[in-house]
């Protein structure tokens, strides 16, 4: 039983991160209408920049905030002048441009921060707390806590804030949104800013649990994508978080009970089956 509990906790904390990535996917897909392949790279960019500012001597909270801002600016500029600029071209071109941006961010990280994995200091002094028979990494608690806070903030933004409402309007009907005075391009840039900011924050939160290395971005992107499809067929915001938790738990169970070699096979097999049987996701309508 304690083995299963242990698996569940690691699944939940990873799943929370996948949920955040999936959320970024959904925002960009709803507003711009493209798959955001660089989504996973935002996490690594966030972690790397935070590490850089930490090494420069900033305290952790300040370093994290500055890093998120830097990532948001870089990503917003890059995306605004590539993908958003050419969104009316055929979709195959758009897919390739998004892949290109992902490679570009990877390349920037490789050049700026080097080839070797780097450790990231944990947020709290105590590494592990004991709860009954379970050992829980404090960082996992941080990750889950930060995700919950982000979720509440997003709920507030989308339901109460004027920009959030405008963004929802854009994703429901761009033409109508434009007619009532919503600037579509601003909304598109804002959606990228939102997904980059969330990604970078999640990246900093999860960094202490593993090393930071430039080439795991694609893996994160794919996990987030699977989560977004599982939860709500790429369009549901709540579904994204639920899907993230499902993916995290599936992955943890596969690693725990089968083998880590084939975790991708299991996950992507599920993705393909789901794309066919329930393209609108588990929570979406048939």
């Amino acid at each position, binding site marked *: 039983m304690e083995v299963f509990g242990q698996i569940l906790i690691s699944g939940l904390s990873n799943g929370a991160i996948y949920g955040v990535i999936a959320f970024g996917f959904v925002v960009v*897909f709803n507003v711009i209408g493209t*798959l955001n392949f660089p989504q996973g790279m935002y996490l690594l960019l966030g972690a790397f920049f935070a590490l850089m500012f930490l090494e420069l001597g900033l305290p952790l909270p300040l370093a994290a905030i500055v890093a998120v801002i830097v990532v948001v600016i870089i990503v917003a500029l890059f995306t605004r002048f*590539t993908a958003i600029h050419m969104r009316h071209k055929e979709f195959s071109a758009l*897919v*390739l*441009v998004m892949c290109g941006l992902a*490679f*570009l961010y990877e*390349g920037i990280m490789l050049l700026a921060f080097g080839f070797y994995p780097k450790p990231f200091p944990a947020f709290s002094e105590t590494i592990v707390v004991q709860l009954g028979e379970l050992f829980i990494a404090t960082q996992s608690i941080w990750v889950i806590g930060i995700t919950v806070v982000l979720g509440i903030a997003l709920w507030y933004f989308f339901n109460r804030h004027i920009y959030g409402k405008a963004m929802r309007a854009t994703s429901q009907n761009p033409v109508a949104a434009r007619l009532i005075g919503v600037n579509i391009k601003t909304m598109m840039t804002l959606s990228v800013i939102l997904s980059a900011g969330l990604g970078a924050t999640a990246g900093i939160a999860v960094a202490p649990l593993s090393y930071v290395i430039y080439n795991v971005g694609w893996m994160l992107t794919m996990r987030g994508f699977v989560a977004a499809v599982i939860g709500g067929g790429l369009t549901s915001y709540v579904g994204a978080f639920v899907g993230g938790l499902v993916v995290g738990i599936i992955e943890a169970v596969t690693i725990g009970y089968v083998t880590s070699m084939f975790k991708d*096979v299991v996950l992507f097999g599920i993705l393909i089956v789901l794309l066919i049987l329930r393209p609108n996701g588990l929570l979406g309508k048939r």
Partner: protein
Amino acid sequence: MRKHYVALLVIAVILAVLSFVLPISEQRTLVFIALFVLTLIGQVIFLGYTGQILLCQATFMAIGGYGTAIITVKYGVPSIVGILFGVVLGIIFAYIIGMIILRLRTFYLAIATLAIALITDALLKGWISLTGGYSGITGIPPIAIGGLVFENVNLFYGLAWIIAFIGWLFALHLGRSRFGRALKTIKGNEMVASSVGINVTKYKVTALMITGAYAALSGALMVHFMGLALPGFFSIEESFLIIMAAILGGASSVYGVFLAAPVLEYLPDLFLKLGDYKLIIYGLLFVLVPMYFMDGLVGLVTRLARRVHKIRLKNYPSGKTIAG
């Protein structure tokens, strides 16, 4: 149609002359270019004729390559049977995944094929009893037809290019046939296509099977030429490179493959020299080419030709057209 045969003949003569002039190392490069031509024809049929992105071309190559590698090495089957087996396996696989995933479109199809490529990658590295894992399969015999063993580079060079030319001619005729026109209609508008009685799914699945056959053949020939099969030959990066090269060459035209294949051969070498800058250049290429250069080198040549043509038209105010 005749001008296409003339063009092909010119390319063939140039290649034949090169086979006597070039040193062995350069001939090896040209063999790889011939094999890339085969894969790229498959990609052009799918991307150019149906307009959908396929990110698992390397998977088909891996199926062809590993298919023949496994049965020739483990069961001692003649290499020619092995290659046929690999190609048939590729076609069957294309049929199965085609029936499953081709009902998806645009982004969903792209990501499903990416997932297939990732699964392949994991299986090639992880299923050690079948694929040999990272160390791959070695000792694959060279191709032998009757008493003729294609052991030295010079002979294989001829074989590879003859197969590439046959494949190219097939694709050329395919593009002009009823089948090719139906595919282009589907690319233009699926609703219109099905309303005039084209069975969209059937045509798309058939196109994927043809694509799979080309890629599997290319992969099978490659492992027999190299004498070994490694997961690195068929990585996800390879799939991305194939797409990139197909677009750089010009995915809308079968001539593009002759321009794209050298790109595909020389890009990785170039990237190797770039070292740590490789990924950035790679990213820039993927961003800038689709933004400004989606019709590729063939498109560039066509545009130039049109410009020349316009100037010539100005000189003949009677409006006589020069195009034959």
